């Protein structure tokens, strides 16, 4: 915080510039920010992105639609199903095909489970940022591991699933899918209790996070934030409710909202979203009926008619949008990913300036960025 004395320039002190990242334990990947600090107070932040740029969008333009799925996984490696979903939905919309009901329900279950595992990743990493030595991290990763085990049984891979296809799914889920999902949900409930007990009410945690990294709802909208970071500021925008895709309109769930727009609200909101996701999966499981998982006749090589679409879905970190332009043929003419993290990151300076160095770290953590998605 700025002391009045420092503001009045009674003492002239020299600002210090420190370089945080790209190799710093709490920059969540290869992110670099140059902090200008006055004592312990941050005066300026200059973020640098782009260390992870691999040109995923451009690469996808050289590939046919099926090959692009693998690249979508790699743009958003914590919520791969959500990323794949945006992509295949865009292709489906261009092709104008109907996806069988069973495939949609399974997509929904997997996306929500993915949201749970992604939010657990957040609680773990955030716990470390706040300074719990590894405990929050291991508790969260135990839960993530359980979800990943389920995904591996279904899709064959722990991280890069490549499971959704335009029109449906690549293959049927395992026979014991329903039972396994129930098992996983039981574990998730325990995991939420653990994380909740460890952090939410801990006085030190509350003292560290409350009132830190404040951003008002209007500012958040101006910066183009989305997802939990936006909702923590009290803006009720959840694409699952606002523009329901899949079958979210048939499901009963709440969208938690924050009041203060600070780091604490962002944390509590994500924990609450885990609970809501568990609710959603429970309802989806009940409605799951046997049936096909791919439309009757799918061409071996997808050729889209000319046109352009924009599809957005609610990924764990916010609005994940795919803008797809086709000029005919089997590959996109232009593909643009609207990355939630990149937009959310814009507000970093707004939230950090005037806070302590230690707060800069947790503010960055609370945005919950995935550098692969920022840089693509």
């Amino acid at each position, binding site marked *: 915080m700025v002391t009045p004395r420092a503001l009045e320039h009674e003492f002239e002190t020299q600002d210090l510039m420190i370089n945080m990242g790209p190799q710093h334990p709490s920059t969540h990947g290869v992110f670099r920010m140059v902090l200008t600090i006055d004592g312990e107070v941050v005066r300026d932040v200059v973020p640098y992105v782009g260390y992870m740029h691999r040109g995923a969008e451009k690469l996808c333009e050289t590939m046919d639609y099926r090959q692009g799925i693998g690249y979508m996984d790699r743009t958003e490696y914590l919520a791969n199903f959500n990323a794949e979903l945006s992509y295949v939905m865009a292709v489906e919309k261009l092709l104008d095909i109907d996806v069988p009901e069973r495939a949609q329900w399974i997509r929904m279950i997997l996306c929500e489970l993915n949201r749970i595992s992604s939010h657990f990743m957040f609680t773990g990493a955030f716990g470390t*940022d706040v300074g*719990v*030595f*590894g405990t929050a991290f291991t508790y969260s990763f135990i839960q993530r591991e359980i979800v990943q085990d389920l995904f591996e049984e279904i899709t064959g891979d722990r991280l890069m699933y490549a499971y959704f296809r335009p029109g449906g799914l690549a293959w049927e889920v395992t026979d014991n899918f329903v039972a396994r999902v129930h098992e996983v949900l039981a574990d998730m409930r325990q995991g939420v209790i653990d994380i909740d007990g460890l952090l939410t009410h801990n*006085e030190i945690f509350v*003292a560290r996070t409350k009132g830190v990294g*404040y951003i008002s709802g209007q500012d958040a909208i101006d910066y183009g934030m989305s997802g939990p970071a936006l909702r923590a500021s009290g803006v009720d925008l959840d694409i699952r409710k606002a523009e329901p895709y899949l079958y979210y309109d048939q499901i009963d769930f709440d969208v938690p909202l924050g009041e203060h727009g600070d780091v604490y609200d962002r944390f509590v909101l994500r924990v609450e979203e885990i609970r809501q996701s568990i609710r959603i999966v429970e309802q989806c499981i009940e409605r799951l009926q046997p049936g096909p998982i791919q439309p009757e006749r799918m061409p071996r090589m997808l050729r889209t008619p000319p046109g352009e679409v924009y599809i957005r879905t609610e990924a764990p970190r916010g609005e994940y949008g795919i803008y797809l332009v086709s000029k005919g043929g089997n590959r996109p003419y232009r593909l643009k990913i609207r990355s939630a993290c990149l937009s959310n990151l814009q507000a970093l300076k*707004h939230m*950090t300036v005037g806070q302590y160095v*230690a707060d800069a770290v947790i503010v960055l953590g609370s945005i919950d960025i995935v550098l692969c998605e920022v840089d693509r």
Partner: protein
Amino acid sequence: MNYDLFGLELNVWVDALIRVLLIVGFMTVSVMGLIYIERKILARFQRRLGPTRTGPMGLLQSLADALKLIGKEDLRPKSADPWTFEFAPYVVFIPVFLGFVIVPFLFGWQVRVIELGLLYFVATSSVNIVGWVMAGWGSDNRYAMIGGMRAAAQGISYELPLVLALLAVAMIASSLNLQEIVSAQGRVPFVVWQPLAFFIFFVAALAEMNRPPFDIPIGESEVVGGPFVEYSGFRWSVFFLAEYAALFILSAIGAAVFLGGWAWPLGEELGRGWQLILMSAKTGMLIFLVFWVRASVPRLRIDQLMGYSWKVLLPLALAQVLVNGAVLVYDWPKQVLLVTGVMGLLALFWVTERAVRQPRTRPAMTIAQSEAAS
């Protein structure tokens, strides 16, 4: 002048040498043991296995680490200040090591029975702050410098409550000699009469040792190791040694001063073996508590840390000293101490909770404001 060491009549220098060697050996082994135990216990708190590979159940892990550290290249940044940089680890380590002199291991046995034992301990243990600042300044690294400054601020702030908490007990025992303090407790350890002082001592000791939640100088997620950032190999291991030696010493002193040291609450005179077991058990309890706290709490921020010391712990410690003085002067019954101590503890908890439940009134400064300021 001759001294008596386990019944042997020895020349003073020979005696001192033997004692120092004993302590050095004991310390090295105990620190390695502590590191192993901490890793195992922390792993269990985090549902991991901990070290398992080196030796049976990973017992030799610390030894392997020590060998690795000694074998490593001792790097010094080109722009570092050579003298400050190279001597800092020892300035941190030696004061801690000096603290071993007054740890009362058994009845009648410590390296030296010093009349002003507590004062000696308080005086020596605060010197290592200089070493931290030296390490931070000499490394010519901005993270290290921030860490060093934080260490200085924290060390000085928490020295006061620590000293006052010990002083409160010394008043009740009417002695600064640790042997006498332990003997004065008799059947009821001082933690019963001085719960507030014990709590303040524990919190301040955590801060003195830079253990979580007060590991602000070395906070890995912020300043990446703080003053240690540029150290490697042997010099780094000296810092490590000092950290764990301090953990052991402060726990042992806490056990002696507040938990009754080698005394068994129910029985009478005990043999040396039992005394050693009791002393180790009580020290071990405190050490386990430190590990447990480490696994459970996040790190405080520097301003909250300072505020907690100066606004909460220090006034309460002073109040405790005042109450103790009144009890001594007016010869009030000891129960008064218990009641006031518990009340003080409740007040402390209440203040802590209230501080947290405050409404959130600190909006982030706007960018325009900050540009105007800079």
